[in-house]
């Protein structure tokens, strides 16, 4: 299935999703295709429209990224 290379992020999903570690809010970074958990300092990747909400798969964000 081709999404034209554009990760489709369903707005409904953004309402429901939280960080699995802190259960705090996540913020979508459309440029990097990541869901950022400021509390955890983690960025969860979104691949082909699917958020990968696993701590093991998340990128540790650098300080002052927000």
């Amino acid at each position, binding site marked *: 299935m081709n999404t034209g290379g554009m990760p489709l992020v369903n707005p409904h999903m953004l309402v429901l*999703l939280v960080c699995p570690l802190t259960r705090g809010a996540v913020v979508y970074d459309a440029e990097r295709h990541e869901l950022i958990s400021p509390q955890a300092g983690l960025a969860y990747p979104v691949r082909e*429209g*699917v958020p990968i909400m696993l701590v093991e798969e998340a990128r540790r964000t650098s300080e002052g990224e927000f």
Partner: protein
Amino acid sequence: MPRAARNPEATQFGFAHVGDAGEKTQRVGHVFQRVAPRYDVMNDVMSGGWHRVWKNIFVDVVAPRAGENVLDVAGGTGDIAKRLLKKTGGAINLTLADLSPEMLSVGKRRMADAGYWNKVTWVQADAAALPFDDACFDVITIAFGLRNVTRIDDALAEFYRCLRTGGRFFCMEFSPQVAAPLAKPYALYRDHIIPRLGAVVAHDRAAYQYLAESIQKFPAPHALGARLQAAGFAHTRADPLMGGVVYIHRAWKG
């Protein structure tokens, strides 16, 4: 629940004992990575097509209502999702979570073929650490998935947390207890035929050996009911299909 250890399955992989929960998760992940492309064919072969009937009954029991937020955990190839959408004419907000990226890929392709791809919110997630807010679902389902979850009690607690008050939980799973007339032939089939079918059809005997073993290691219906209650659920109930080969468990968040 009596003072049994929490998540006793976390260090069991079928009959084998594994070092820690991480190893169990990894080994189950490898099973689904390998079987994903042939998962649906194998389900038909192993069950003689019966899994389709079980899943239809399951979705009838779930009885989703228009407008509800529904989460299907370990939804993999979309078998339950497709039926939930069909039953409601696509009028539910459906989120599908699975830990296996390979199963999600197969599911996305299949749901696209069925015209349902954009009706589903796809998330890769661990049932024991769900990335969803408290009380945000009306219904949570898991069909033939709980057996493969590393930390079952943690997952049940997560299902409870993510359901709203009055929310309903439904689980369909194989049972280690099968009624007498069927018990022996079924055990023979499960332990000897299924691994061979796996070898021939899916070219992976080990994966289906795990399947057969994991069925025997899964808690009996009353034990799962007790663990659902320990997680906070009320009105737990388990109904057998086909002499207890499969059970539909339901529970309510009061």
